[in-house]
C-alpha cells in the first residue's frame, strides 16, 4: 500500500517532484521523472492529494499487481468515477504527429473496461453485472460522441476520468473527460449511450430494475454530464445523407485484428471505416474535432461495408437534410456519414463529423 501510495503520489506530483524524487533516491534514475518538469507545473498539491486519497479509497491492498500500478488507474475517493492515465505510444500516432482518433477511442474503451473491472463487474471485458451474465445480456453501444480539442502527441500522458449513469429506462450512458496530465487542461470530452442486448438472440432488452440497481450504486447520484451545456453536439440527430454521396469508399472488410473474441467487429473499427471515405484534401488540412456515431446494426467478420460521406451544408446554402440552418462556421467543416452493408444495403451506422483547420 505504501508503495502504491508512493507510486501514485509520485505520479500526481511528477511535475513538482522530479528533482525531489531523484534527490531523494540519490540515484538519479528517475527516467520517468524527467517528464513534464516545467516551472509552471507547481499546483500539484490538490491533484496529488486527490490521487493519493483515491488510491487509498480504492482499497489498495498490499498485493496490488504491477499491472494495476502501471495502469495508474483507480476509483476516485467517492468511488463514483474512475481515473486512469495513459502514455501515448509511437504507433498510436498518425499523420499529424498526434494520436489518432482511433487511439483515443481505444483508450476510452479501455478505461471504461477498467472502471467496470475495478468495481467488480465482469473481467471478461464486457462489464456485465452478475444478473446480466445470468440472463446472457451484454451492453452494446448505441451512440458514441467524442470531441477532441487538443490531440496528444507521442509521449504525452492523458488522464481520463469516466463514470456511468442510467439513461431513461432503456439504457445507460458512460461519460469521459480527457485531460493532459501535465497541464490539467481538458483536451477532450466524450459520452456514449448503451443498451442491453441478449447475447444469443441479439435482441434488445429493457434494463430491469434488478440490473439497474446493481450498477447504479457506482454511478453519481445526481446527473453528471460531460456535456452539460444546452443543445450540445452529443444530442443532435443525425440525418441520413442524401443520395448520391459526395465521397465513398466501397467494399471495406474487417481484418482479423478488428474482431473481438466473438468474431464481432470492434466498435473502434467503425470509426476508422466512417473516416475512410473522407477526402484527402480535408485530411491533409484539417483535424477531426467532433465525431458522433449512431450504431444501428452489427457487422460480422465476413461482411463488407460501403462508407459514404457528404458535406453537411452544400455550397449553395441548402442543408443536406438537416433541420436547422445553423451558420456554417468558416473554420469548421461538417460532414455526414453513412455505413452500409455492401451486400444488403442495410444501414450499419450513421455519423457526423466536424473538422477544424490545422495550423501548420
Amino acid at each position: 500500500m505504501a508503495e502504491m501510495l508512493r507510486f501514485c503520489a509520485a505520479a500526481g506530483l511528477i511535475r513538482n517532484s522530479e528533482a525531489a524524487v531523484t534527490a531523494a533516491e540519490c540515484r538519479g534514475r528517475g527516467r520517468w521523472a524527467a517528464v513534464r518538469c516545467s516551472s509552471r507545473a507547481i499546483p500539484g498539491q490538490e491533484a496529488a492529494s486527490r490521487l493519493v486519497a483515491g488510491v487509498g479509497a480504492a482499497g489498495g491492498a498490499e498485493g496490488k499487481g504491477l499491472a494495476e500500478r502501471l495502469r495508474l488507474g483507480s476509483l476516485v475517493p467517492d468511488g463514483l468515477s474512475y481515473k486512469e492515465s495513459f502514455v501515448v505510444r509511437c504507433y498510436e500516432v498518425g499523420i499529424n504527429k498526434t494520436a489518432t482518433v482511433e487511439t483515443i477511442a481505444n483508450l476510452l474503451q479501455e478505461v471504461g473496461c477498467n472502471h467496470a473491472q475495478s468495481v467488480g463487474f465482469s473481467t471478461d471485458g464486457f462489464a456485465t453485472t452478475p444478473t446480466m451474465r445470468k440472463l446472457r445480456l451484454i451492453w452494446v453501444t448505441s451512440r458514441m460522441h467524442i470531441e477532441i480539442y487538443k490531440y496528444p502527441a507521442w509521449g504525452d500522458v492523458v488522464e481520463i476520468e469516466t463514470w456511468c449513469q442510467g439513461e431513461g429506462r432503456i439504457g445507460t450512458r458512460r461519460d469521459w473527460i480527457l485531460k493532459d496530465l501535465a497541464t490539467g487542461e481538458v483536451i477532450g470530452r466524450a459520452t456514449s449511450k448503451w443498451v442491453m442486448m441478449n447475447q444469443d438472440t441479439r435482441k434488445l432488452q429493457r434494463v430491469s430494475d434488478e440490473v439497474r440497481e446493481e450498477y447504479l450504486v457506482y454511478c453519481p447520484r445526481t446527473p453528471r454530464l460531460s456535456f452539460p451545456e444546452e443543445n450540445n453536439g452529443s444530442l443532435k440527430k443525425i440525418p441520413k445523407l442524401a443520395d448520391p454521396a459526395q465521397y465513398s469508399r466501397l467494399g471495406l472488410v474487417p481484418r482479423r485484428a478488428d474482431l473481438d473474441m466473438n468474431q464481432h467487429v470492434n466498435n473502434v473499427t467503425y470509426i476508422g471505416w466512417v473516416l475512410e471515405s473522407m477526402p484527402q484534401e480535408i485530411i491533409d488540412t484539417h483535424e477531426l474535432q467532433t465525431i458522433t456515431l449512431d450504431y444501428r446494426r452489427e457487422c460480422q467478420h465476413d461482411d463488407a461495408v460501403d462508407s459514404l460521406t457528404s458535406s453537411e451544408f452544400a455550397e449553395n446554402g441548402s442543408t443536406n437534410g438537416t433541420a436547422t440552418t445553423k451558420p456554417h462556421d468558416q473554420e469548421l467543416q461538417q460532414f455526414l456519414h453513412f455505413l452500409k452493408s455492401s451486400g444488403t444495403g442495410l444501414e450499419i451506422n450513421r455519423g457526423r463529423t466536424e473538422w477544424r483547420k490545422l495550423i501548420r
Partner: protein
Amino acid sequence: MVASMATSVFFPVPSSSSVASAKAPKPINEGPERLGIRGIVAKPASQSGAMEVKAQAQAIPKVNGTKVGLKAEAQTVEDDAPSAPRTFYNQLPDWSFLFAAITTIFLAAEKQFTLIDWKPRRPDMLADAFGLGKMMQDGLDFRQNFSIRSYEIGADRTASIETLMNHLQETALNHARSAGLLVDGFGSTPEMTKKNLIWVVTKMQVLVERYPSWEDVVEVDTWVASSGKNGMRRDWHVHDHRTGQTVLRATSVWVMMNKLTRRLSKIPEEVRAEIEPYFVDRDPIIDEDSRKVQKLEDNTADFIKRGLNPRWGDLDINQHVNNVKYIGWILESAPISILESHELAGMTLEYRRECGRDSVLQSLTAVSNHGSDGSPEAGIECQHLLRLESGAEIMRGRTQWRPKRAQGLQNMGPLPAGNT
C-alpha cells in the same frame, strides 16, 4: 507511427543530476544510441547538452513545454568523440534559467514531501510509471514495461503478435529518445542528416515462447550492434515481468539508405565514427535463419487475399504504412483453421518496399509442411508474400506455428524452430 519530437523533447537537467548523483559524471560512450524505426536514427544537437545525458537518462525535463534549441546542425558533433570521457560541466551552455526553475520546483516538492510517507522506492518502478522506460546500468540496454491493454488482445484472449511488435517499435524509439538522440522523430545522426541518410529495416526474426494475456506486464529489453560492414542490428528480449519467463526474442537488421535517391548506402566514415562506439559486442539473440525465403507466385500459393487497403489510421507522419501492419496483412491469407488450432511460434520477415495510402495489396500464403507424421503435436510452417496489385513485392516471410497450449500448461515444450 513516428511521432515528432517537437512536442516532447527531453533534456538533461544538470542541477538535478548533480544533486541526484553526487558522483562524477559517467563517461559518455554509453550515451546516444541508435534506434531503427524505419530509418530513424537521431543524434540531437548538443546545445541542449543532450550529449551529457548520462546513459541512465535521468532527469530530462521538458522546460515549459518548449524545446530548447534542438536543431539539426549540432556544433558539438565533432567533439563527440564518444570514447573519451568528458566532464559534464565544460560542455554546458548557460543553464541559469533552468537552475532557477529547478530550485523553485525542488522547494515546492520539498513541501510535498511532508504529506507523504516516503520510502526509497525501486527506481525502475518509478521510471516506468508511465511506461517510458529507462536505460539500464550499463548504459547500453534499454528497458521498458508495458501493461497489455484490453484492445490489444486477439480473438484467443492473448496479446496479438501485432501488439508485441508494436511494443518492440516503441522501445526502440524510446531507447533513442532517452539517450537524447531523437530529433524531429526521424533524425539520423547529424552526419547522416547531412547526407540525407536514413536507416531502413531489411530483416526481422521473431521467436515467441508464450503470449501474454490482458493485464500481464511485459518487460522489453533492447540494444543495438553492428551487422556486417554496413548494417546495424537491433535485438529485443521480452520477459513476463511477473514470472521472468521469456515472452519473445527478436533480432532485426537495418541498412542505410539515401532518402532522396532511395538507394542503399555504405556507412560513411563520419557516421561510423559517430555510431560505432555504441554498438554492443554481443551475438544475435536468435541464430540467423539463413534459409532462403522463397517468393510465392499465384500458382505456388495455397491462399490469396486481394484488395487489402491501408486505412488512414495505418499511416505514419510520412503517410507510409507502419511496418507492423504488414504482419497483420501477411496473416490475412493464412487459413483460419491454422489460426484457430495453432499459435505463431516464430517468423522470419524480409522487407523489400514500403507502401502508402493508395496501395492495394495482396497477401499470399503457402502451407509448406503439416508435420510428416500428421500428429497433432507437429508444427506447421508457412511461406508468405505481400505484394502490390501491380506485382511489386512489399515483403516476404516464413512463419512457424505450434499447436495452441491448453490454458495453464505454460511450460509445454520447446520451440519447434521450423522443424516438425
